[in-house]
């Protein structure tokens, strides 16, 4: 920090300075304060810039889907509301709104098919080399396939996805804008 051009310190001398700075910063708050100012805003900002991409950017499609379910089916309104004080009839009426709207999002945006075609409750055989993603085994899982069992839930698979696209120019955190009537 002088006006004279700096000459390179030998490595061991630099280690000495570093350790001394470390110690002074640790024991003297005033030194630590000045050192931070001297190092500039870069140090303070460093943790933020070095952090990974914010989750709302990587998860933007998930937020978008949530926004769609809110727009069409008022899902967030429904889940955020305290329903303890309402009777079942009132909850039921609101559930119709949620059901009709969210169902529209599902049917228009996805093609859903069961993972196994048989109806729930039928006896099924799980062959060797089955797809462990599509079939979950429960109960007495012993031995090796083929397994005999009863289908408890046929599962769901989205065989086609045609959800609307969303402009990257918009903030994905806004799930529903505030509405102001003029």
């Amino acid at each position, binding site marked *: 920090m002088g006006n004279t051009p700096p000459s390179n310190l030998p490595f061991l001398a630099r280690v000495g300075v570093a350790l001394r700075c470390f110690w002074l910063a640790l024991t003297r708050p005033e030194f630590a304060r000045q050192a931070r100012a001297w190092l500039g805003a870069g140090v303070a900002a460093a943790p933020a810039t070095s952090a990974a991409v914010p989750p709302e950017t990587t998860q933007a499609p998930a937020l978008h889907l949530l926004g769609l379910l809110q727009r069409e089916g008022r899902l967030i309104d429904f889940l955020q509301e305290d329903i303890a004080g309402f009777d079942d009839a009132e909850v039921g009426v609101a559930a119709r709104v949620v059901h009709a709207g969210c169902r529209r999002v599902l049917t228009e945006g996805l093609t859903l098919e069961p993972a196994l075609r048989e109806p729930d409750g039928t006896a099924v055989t799980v062959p060797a080399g089955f797809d462990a993603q599509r079939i979950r085994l429960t109960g007495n899982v012993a031995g090796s396939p083929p397994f005999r069992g009863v289908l408890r839930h046929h599962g769901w698979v989205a065989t086609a996805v045609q959800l609307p696209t969303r402009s990257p*120019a918009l903030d994905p955190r806004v799930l529903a804008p505030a509405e102001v009537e003029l």
Partner: protein
Amino acid sequence: MPRYSIGIDLGTTNCAVSYFDLGEADGRREQTMLAIPQLTAVGTVEARPLLPSFLYLPNEQEFPAGGLGLPWDSQRSGTVVGEFARTHGSQVPMRLVASAKSWLCHSGVDRSSAILPWQAPADVRRVSPLEASARYLTHLREAWDHQFPDAPLATQDVVLTVPASFDAAARDLTRRAAEQAGLPQLTLLEEPQAAFYAWCEAMGAGFRKQVRPGDVVLVVDVGGGTCDFSLIAVTDRAGEVELTRVAVGDHILLGGDNMDLALAHAVHARLTAAGKKLDAWQFNALTFACRQAKERLYEDPKLTRAPLVVPGRGSALVGGTLKADLERSELEQLLTEGFFPRTTATDRPQTARRTGLAQIALPYAQDPAVTRHLAGFLTRQARALAEAHEAPLDVRGQAFVHPTAVLFNGGVFRASPLKQRVLEVLNDWLAADGAQPAKELGGAELDLAVARGAAYYGWVRQGHGLRIRGGTARAYYVGVETPMPAVPGVSPPVKALCVAPFGMEEGTQADVPPQEFGLVVGEPTRFRFFASSLRREDRVGTLLESATDADDLEELAPLETTLPATANNAGELVPVNLQAAVTEVGTLELRCLEQGGAGQWKLELNVRMKD
């Protein structure tokens, strides 16, 4: 060489595009509707088969930057077309343009000046009915070009449909809208004809088993906003089946939207009586819910009622939601009896008396009864056909034209009870007039048929299928003032000179024989212009004594032309003859031909004024 034949249904409430690969025409059986990307919310683009014909003109600060982007233009701003325009516009009606197509055939207003949104406040930018239509077509063209960059729409064979009831002026405006949208080359086709073509294509070879020479097909097309009737005769000429479009109905602004509104008003009245208040937003939601409940009830005849739920507008959903039921009895009372009542063939639609201070607005049908409009159409046409010598139909002894088959079109008829009712009423009339009952031509597609039929027509035009003949569905006349001494308060009588006869075919022209007109060089010359959908007998040159008293003549927007003046002939009188031509596009063109000279001037339809 165009690769595709493309049918565009530019509807009052929805547009659709169907296409037909001309290279593999025989193999076409799968659905070939263009998926139209459009905004469904801010920043959200979805591709849908229908583009709602709504245009929203946003405030500059209303939406975030990039929020109105489209796949082919991420920075788009300024206007919104389609689903988001419809849903958002219903909450901001003063910035929403709807039913532009109905304005396009409304001769009481200036159709090329910026008048829409109708009665919008001064700071809202406005557009003309012409421009609004051009915007929808532009969106369709951009969507097509985005999907088929190797075959731009402007280079393909495009067929654009118009209501059969569109007159020469409305057709010309539609052509101009297409031109503005970058589609200078296209062909116009009447919607009921397109529906019939779609049916023919769907039937394939079975078509000839269902209709035979002697059949008269009535096309009943009830869309979202309009009702359109046409009669198509099946005749035999030297062993070949021939199809002729015999007559078309008037433009009736009455459709499925009226029906949804009728239901919403009825439910609203019940809710209000129970002390519940709905704001405008909730009323919209109620109308939407009514449409869905209606569709459910019509789909499942076992249901006696369908629930309607209207969420509150605030974030409190539970407790803020209103519930009502739509009863089947209500549906039957309001829709079947209200819009399709059992009437007699002699009933006529009621027309309300216009009060002196009536606002200029869209001329909505005063009578909601589709059956009465139908009776009026069939009776009027029977009289007109009886007077014609070479009518393609024999209507002797018929009080009204007797259809032998009915083809339904338009989303309204997804409700089979409504189709049933129309058939019952028609067959009651036929029985009373001593005729055989008409049958329904089944297998029609209703919603997308017009676009599909239009695309198929492109293929038919290349000589592959049976073409419907018919020509113009009206005769056209210009007004000729009779010289008489000036009398204060009495305007000279106007005679009507027939310039284009009924049934004039595309690509033909007709010279108006001896009548001579004088055009003043350098000054605009105007002709009054009339049309008739009933006078089938008049030939070119026929002179009707009084144009203004004839009740079968309808005055259209005037025609106008100006001869460009040169240095020394300004003010001179140039004698001209008139010539009419029906273009290949399907529009009517009138020209002035200089007598004994080479001069030729087009008469423009002046859509600005109608006195």
